């Protein structure tokens, strides 16, 4: 039984608990919140947050007590899912002292949820070990439309940093959202606001209070920026007085400070031992150039199994890698372990490398104006290279020189390429005093390219036999490689068959030959197939078929007529040439019109030609990474809908 099954099973167990009995009145803050009258929203808005307040009190020794008061009114049945209290904590450095919740029904009755209703569960069951846990009160079963759900959580924590973030809002509309910070005398705080004009705190003594009101809902849209880049967020840093107080947590005022701190954590762990020296020598025995050496080491480290075991996160171990020697011996580790082992291996070859802190999942999330390690969730590596090494993933650091950026964790992305979600992101080069927040390279579409050739023979009855050859590079190849390596052979073949039969129903696939070159990062695929009645014969005189036989692997689907948020596009390019040998008995009567589109974010060109009894159909799409503002949505939508329509267009043959 997998852990997933176990967690689901546990959920069933817990559902069987008796529902809470009648209880006391709701607290005053909740009653006040419930009395608020939200404006009318569109019918698909599931709930409205009436009150969301966090109060953080910092003791002289730096310990925090956090009180969260939250109230939400359920507006639709879907909104029931929001009647859940969740409080995260770290087992070794924090605790949830109290979690209480209430349901206030429309008839005025109140139910209280107490200690016996709290579920305490692991935050991520997939990790071998994870100290993050959640305390949960789930009232969704009882939260009918119109009810107000509220909770209060009181947590205590010994923080690692004197920094915090506050999401004024997620997707739900929010009437009042506030963050209150009670500092010991003499301490001070500063803040930065993201996705919103700066929110100034009201300050009374050493108490700071930030508030926003009447925030509108943020509905989900395809290819949209993440909600963390749309909803107002606050980043707070607080500082000890220059003298007098002491505390163990850290405060950062600049990225260099973060870099120094990261260096302290990483450098001692990257000390090579004999095994590392021997492994580096073995791996690079046949390497002739600096790039060869980096590739050999990088490929080895990427090939180690990803397993995350973080013990002592509250003491900074979430940022401190395991010793490189230990990671090599166990042959597994997480992102920082891999980056660190790679540094150690390179060090034995006199190649200097630095850890790079980055956020994986959204290249636009990290903001320069707030120096904090909490902005990152991933660790990659920057390798100092000489001028002889020429790859596209190089940045120029004023003091450190040319740095090759590489993700030692993503086993599908080789040296010279970067994962999509790292490209263009701000990331911290962790290099002591020389550390700096820098923009990661963005690769042009032609370096993430899939090129397809199809040779097709069309017979008079509409049947086809076809041979496809695909070659991809960069992140296009990564997508192919991920599918190929993630599936068993039979599963992969099945996936290819499904892809082919989506375009040519009833196709019989006779050959699937993938070629994965993990050193250069190229991926090749050869597929042969045949399909009866692909073209349709009409009245014995017309033969109609679509030359775009198989679909592209990815397609942006923007069908909604209007748009609220920008469209986020990745970088990719696709070209296809289809040669169709036409049956001798037929000649071309009608061909679709060629299409050429050029925009700031991409271009498309298709063409049709007949030469020597062959129809040659080409299509070429290039999409540049970027963010298209919502007011240009129609341009993007039209771009893709015109492509989609053009690729459905048939060729008409007429019997001679």
């Amino acid at each position, binding site marked *: 039984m997998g852990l997933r099954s176990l967690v689901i099973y546990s959920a069933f167990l817990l559902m069987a608990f008796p529902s809470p009995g009648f209880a006391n009145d709701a607290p005053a803050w909740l009653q006040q919140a419930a009395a608020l009258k939200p404006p009318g929203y569109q019918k698909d808005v599931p709930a409205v947050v009436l009150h969301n307040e966090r109060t953080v009190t910092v003791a002289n020794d730096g310990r925090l007590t956090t009180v969260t008061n939250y109230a939400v009114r359920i507006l639709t049945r879907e909104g029931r899912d929001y009647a859940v209290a969740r409080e995260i904590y770290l087992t070794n450095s924090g605790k949830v002292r109290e979690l209480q919740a209430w349901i206030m029904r429309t008839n005025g009755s109140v139910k209280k949820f107490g200690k016996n209703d709290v579920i305490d569960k692991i935050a991520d069951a997939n990790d*071998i*070990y994870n100290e993050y846990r959640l305390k949960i009160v789930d009232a969704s079963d009882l939260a009918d439309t119109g009810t107000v759900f509220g909770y209060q959580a009181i947590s205590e924590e010994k923080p690692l940093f004197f920094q915090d973030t506050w999401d004024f809002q997620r997707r739900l509309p929010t009437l009042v959202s506030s963050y209150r910070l009670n500092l010991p005398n003499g301490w001070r705080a500063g803040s930065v606001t993201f996705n919103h004009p700066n929110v100034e705190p009201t300050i009374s003594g050493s108490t700071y209070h930030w508030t926003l009101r009447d925030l509108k809902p943020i509905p989900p849209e395809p290819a949209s920026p993440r909600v963390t880049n749309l909803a107002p967020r606050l980043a707070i840093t607080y500082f000890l007085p220059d003298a007098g107080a002491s505390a163990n947590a850290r405060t950062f005022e600049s990225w260099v400070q973060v870099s120094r701190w990261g260096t302290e954590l990483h450098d001692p762990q990257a000390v090579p031992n004999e095994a590392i020296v021997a492994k580096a020598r073995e791996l690079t025995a046949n390497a002739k150039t600096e790039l060869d050496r980096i590739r050999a080491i990088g490929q080895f480290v990427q090939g180690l199994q990803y397993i995350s075991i973080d013990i002592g996160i509250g003491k900074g171990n979430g940022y401190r890698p395991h010793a490189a020697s230990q990671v090599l011996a166990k*042959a597994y580790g997480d992102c920082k372990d891999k980056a660190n082992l790679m540094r150690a291996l390179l060090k034995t070859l006199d190649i200097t490398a630095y850890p790079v802190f980055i956020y994986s999942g959204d290249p636009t999330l990290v903001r320069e104006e707030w120096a904090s390690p909490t902005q990152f969730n991933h660790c990659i590596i920057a390798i100092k290279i000489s001028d002889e090494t020429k790859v596209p993933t190089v940045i120029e650091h004023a003091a450190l020189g040319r740095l090759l950026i590489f993700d030692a964790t993503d086993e599908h992305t080789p040296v010279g390429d970067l994962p999509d979600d790292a490209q263009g992101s701000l990331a911290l080069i962790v290099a002591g005093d020389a550390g700096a927040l820098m923009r990661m390279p963005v690769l042009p579409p032609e370096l993430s390219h899939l090129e397809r050739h199809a040779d097709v023979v069309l017979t008079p009855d509409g049947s086809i036999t076809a041979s496809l050859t695909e070659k991809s590079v960069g992140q296009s190849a990564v997508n192919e490689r991920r599918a190929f390596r993630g599936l068993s052979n039979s599963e992969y073949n099945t996936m290819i068959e499904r892809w082919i039969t989506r375009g040519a*129903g*009833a196709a019989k696939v006779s050959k699937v030959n993938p070629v994965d070159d993990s050193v250069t990062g190229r991926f090749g695929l050869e597929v042969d197939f045949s399909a009866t*009645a692909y073209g*349709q014969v009409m009245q014995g005189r017309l033969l109609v078929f679509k030359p775009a036989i198989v679909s592209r692997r990815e397609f942006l689907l923007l069908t909604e007529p209007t748009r609220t948020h920008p469209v986020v596009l990745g970088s990719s390019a696709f070209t296809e040439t289809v040669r169709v040998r036409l049956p001798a008995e037929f000649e071309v009567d009608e061909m679709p019109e060629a299409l050429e589109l050029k925009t700031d974010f991409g271009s498309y060109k298709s063409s049709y030609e007949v030469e020597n009894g062959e129809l040659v159909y080409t299509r070429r799409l290039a999409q540049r990474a970027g963010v298209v503002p919502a007011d240009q949505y129609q341009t993007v939508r039209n771009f893709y809908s015109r492509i*989609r329509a053009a690729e459905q267009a048939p060729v008409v043959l007429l019997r001679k």
Partner: protein
Amino acid sequence: MRLTLFLSLPLGLLCLLASFPATGLAANDWKPVDPAHLTLKEPVVEKDADAEALFWEVKVNDDPNGDLIFTHYLRIKVFSERGRETQSKIDIPFGRLFGSEIRIRDIAARTIKTDGSIVELKKDDVLERTIVKASGVKVKAKSFAMPAVEPGCIIEYRWREIRVNQSANYVRLDFQRDIPVQHVKYFIKPYPFEGLAMRSLTMNGSGEPFAKEKGGYYSTTMTNVPALYQESRMPPENEIKTWMLIFYARDNKSDPDKYWSDFGKRIYDSTKSLLKVNDVVRQKATELTSGATSDEEKVDRLFHFCRTEIRNVSRHASELTTEERKKLKENKSPSDTLKRGMGYAGDIDLLFASLATAVGFDARIVLAPDRGQVFFNRNLPNAYFLNASNIAVRVGQDWRFYNPGYTFVPPGMLRWQEEGTPSLITDPKQPVWVNTPLSGHDKSQVKRNAKLSLTEDGVLEGQVTIEFTGHFAIDRKVDFAGDTPNQREEDLREEIKARMSTAEVTDIRIENITDSLKPLTYSYRLRVPGYAQRTGKRLFLQPALFQRGSGPLFATSTRKYDIYFPYPWSESDEVTINLPAGYVLDNADAPAPFGAASISDYKPSLRVTSDGRMLIYSRSFFFGAGGNILFPAKSYSQLKNYFDVLHQQDGHTVTLKQDGATASN
């Protein structure tokens, strides 16, 4: 009072418990490693396997001291990185699971590299995690990652699992894993029951007969067991997977007929009090059937009453008010159910039987298997596979089957899982097996209608209605039960957009979701830009709107397992399309009808109104007539071909040409 399983643990629960990764001996020493295994380059059982278990041994000790002790030992050869990824992270759940306390002891693991060197798992590397805890429930796991694993390595691990105060009676033993296994061996030490012996049933496989071993154990072995795969439209996993049921019984060679006869009598005796008729029930039954002119009408009235007037809390529990929830007491008799006006599904079934009995019908509890779980074989004399699920009422000379407690099943039908299966009608003297009827394809129908207009730029727009009956309706109504109206609408939009990405779906109405008697209906307004493709002088139009964008039913060329359709079904479509001004039909070709003996038939038709302005397309299709819903894997290519042809015919395109265009002629 709930009419539930009379038997032991539910099948699914047993599957879950027994599907822990498993292994063998508890001795301190590891088994010697065969040098040939170190150098093994290719899997033995299945050539493409990423990893293969060299052996998998489990000792099961039904300890006389009261616990059931499993000792697991598994040795795996890793052939690829994918094999490493899938096999080298181990989680062993324990704690209070399924009402039983499970303890884990003596975990040991090691990796054997291709050069024979060994990396032991350190004790500290076994991490104990509390997955969830609340109000006395605590589910934990022992987790570890195998050290230094790379393709070519052998990994092995073992542990003891103690199921506190449990017995091996009706324990399920799996012989198949997610990877192939060269050698599976179970050692079982039965509890020394007086007069009872350990018995076994092997499903979908054949192992060696049990052999006597040292220390009171008996062993059975299977070799070269392939991995378990998933395929679309495959029979239930219990019909595919190799597994064994262990139980204790007096007689290993009992005559099935006698076994079932005794069992049916026993169940009758033990349940007859549940159908008790008292004055309240009799009075109600008389009142309900007053004026009915036939036995059929009487039974229908009773069914209708139970279905519509007794609140079924099995289905609607989440909608109960606080006050109603408080009233949920156990109904101890049909009379209680009647008085309270609410009950669980089983209560309602029993009330129905009691009411029928009260007005003179012979009504019985029926024990039926679930063919969504397993295909029942009554020659296997074991009640493990039966559930008390329906009520049989003798009307005239025939037994008729009813399930008023299952909200969405209309009278005359059962859940598809219980249709077309042998069912045991309990009786004090002579229980009988009767096959429940399998509803014909006409009972489960989707009837679709579209009235549309096409513009000259290829936009198709109009009104659509869809009606589902029978099992189609039941399945959808069950799915809908937990959904909100917005979710239902969104699901429908997604379903349509998955086929036609440009479709705009508005004015959605979904009706009769909670009405078991009426068909489930959808109606909506549809607009599909780019539905027809336009060239210079023609428009190409696929009339089969409801099949547009659907892939072929079977996409893969090979098949491992049999093909199984849960029930016969039929489809009936009518699509009318007003043609755009300036265009006329160029070709009058219609897709061709075809069929497969009496199992299936496809009849399309295409015509144009006399004024040439409207295209009328109709399509009828059925499948599974004669109860043909299970096909052997060897007939896959024929079946695939049949559905491929259907897919091609559904893709038939007609050409509209511009009025007066001559070029193509």
